[in-house]
């Protein structure tokens, strides 16, 4: 460990928070458009999963890489369009119940990551100030 900020735990937690915030934006957008004709929902996927599935460049926008200092291709996640078919006649493929469940899970994950990050910082603070801070 060569310095405080190379702490992988903090970096990973920060990445989790970034991704969860992005998911929140995407789910909000999906739910706002639950009654929009021909709307296709979006979702956030890990870049590695995309690569494994053999996808080329992402269909929607890329997200700014917050872990700067690494290679540009190491973007962690992407927003993609879910083009699966739907049972609805208006072409909209948002399942409102599933979307709400994803929303709830995501919120919990964000809160959990924030908690763990906080504990991590508490620990660092304790170590740095030798228990007096």
């Amino acid at each position, binding site marked *: 460990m060569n310095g405080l900020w190379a702490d992988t735990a903090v970096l990973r937690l920060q990445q989790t928070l970034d991704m969860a915030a992005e998911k929140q934006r995407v789910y*909000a957008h999906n739910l*706002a*458009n639950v009654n929009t004709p021909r709307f296709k929902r979006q979702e956030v996927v890990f870049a590695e999963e995309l690569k494994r599935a053999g996808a080329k460049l992402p269909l929607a926008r890329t997200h700014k890489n917050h872990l700067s200092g690494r290679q540009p291709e190491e973007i962690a996640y992407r927003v993609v369009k879910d083009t699966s078919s739907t049972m609805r006649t208006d072409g909209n493929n948002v399942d409102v119940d599933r979307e709400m469940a994803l929303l709830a899970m995501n919120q919990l994950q964000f809160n959990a990551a924030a908690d763990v990050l906080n504990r991590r910082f508490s620990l660092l603070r304790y170590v740095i100030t030798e228990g007096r801070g």
Partner: protein
Amino acid sequence: MSLFSSMLTSASGLTAERLRLDLIAGNIANARTTRTAEGGPYRRKSAVFAEVLDRAGRAGRGVKVAAITVDRTEGRLEYDPQHPDANEDGYVAYPNVDILQEMVDMITASRSYEANVTALNAAKSMFLKALEIGRR
């Protein structure tokens, strides 16, 4: 972009669904209105939703009501020569509002409204949680 943009997105959903509910309420209230200012019976109104994207055209920013359309299909004709709005054949033209369909739409719209409220609350909860990072 911050969690604020998520809240604005949800707010756009709330606005759109509420407008839809207003139109539905108007349809139901006017289901038997045979006389309007522009002549003829009341015509059912509905909202057309459209996705809103950011200026780059890729990030989602919610929904908007692109248009309010008037349904021009013919409604029912009832034979009632005594009615003040009867035509020369004695038929009265009634609005093209199907109450049952409007009720179903109303339930869908209010459920969608609640879903947007839930999304807004989720964003707010995450924001408040993030503020606790670094708190002693």
